[in-house]
């Protein structure tokens, strides 16, 4: 059963096989959780979102007829649930303004005190949602640009720009942090 491809799983899900849902849960629970935790910056809420997602799937509330590729679809459903949560908390900054790339404020002061790996991860968590999700789906989920485009619901060129912008911003920030450390020692 575990050797089933995502396409086989999709067929099983469409016919409402409980085994397909269990396998899907085993295969994607952790990855969806990690993705949601990054988007929401809240592990407890991420757990709730993932449980809610699988409950929705089990109850067959979601139509699977138009689903072509399972993974981007699954992450899109998770993303939509996260966005709803963010809107509820009024923390979602979905602006396309490229000048405002940080979620709240520039995390420079926080990062100066951290070791490099931790500083990079923390810097990612401070990015605006649209840039954060792009870099997460690429680096952690290793999705292709077309899969990310499908998940997020934007053109390929937008995905390319957002990933670049996230990288560029993180690199600039971390260079500044490095310089600050050198001048401070």
């Amino acid at each position: 059963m575990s050797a089933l491809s995502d396409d086989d799983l999709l067929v099983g899900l469409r016919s409402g096989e409980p085994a397909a849902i269990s396998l899907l849960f085993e295969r994607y629970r952790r990855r969806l959780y990690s993705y949601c935790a990054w988007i929401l910056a809240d592990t407890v809420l991420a757990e709730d979102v993932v449980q809610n997602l699988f409950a929705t799937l089990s109850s067959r509330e979601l139509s699977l007829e138009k689903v072509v590729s399972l993974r981007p679809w699954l992450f899109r459903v998770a993303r939509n649930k996260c966005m709803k949560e963010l809107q509820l908390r009024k923390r979602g900054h979905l602006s396309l303004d490229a000048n405002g790339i940080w979620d709240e404020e520039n995390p420079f002061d926080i990062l100066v005190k951290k070791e490099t790996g931790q500083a990079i991860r923390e810097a990612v968590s401070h990015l605006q949602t649209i840039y954060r999700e792009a870099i997460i789906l690429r680096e952690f989920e290793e999705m292709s640009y077309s899969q990310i485009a499908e998940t997020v619901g934007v053109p390929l060129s937008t995905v390319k720009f957002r990933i670049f912008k996230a990288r560029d911003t993180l690199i600039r920030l971390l260079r500044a942090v490095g310089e600050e450390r050198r001048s401070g020692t």
Partner: protein
Amino acid sequence: MNCESWRMEISAWLDDELEDAAARELHVHLADCADCRGFLKDARHMSGILRKGGGVEYGSQVPLLRRRLTIPFASVALGVLVACLFTFIAALALGRVDVDVYFPKEDQNALGETGHMPSTGEYQP
């Protein structure tokens, strides 16, 4: 094309999302531009770090104060059952509970005259 545009191409190339012709042009530019080579080096380094330990492990790395106390319902039910059983056995051992066992009418004969069933055959606690 300015350096910012080239860096967007570098980012796409790192992700294996650049076509061959564009990649060749990019490498011509990289040979001449130290700043873009620096970006490539840093982007690779950052990508390596992120991929190594960026995921959030299920159930771990959860700050203690933000973690809800979640006890499965089955554990609670089992705990209550065990507690009730223990109390009942203790009370029984102390002789503080009388146990009447009810047998249906058809089983009365099996008890005989020394049985504990009331003579009416009906359950009378």
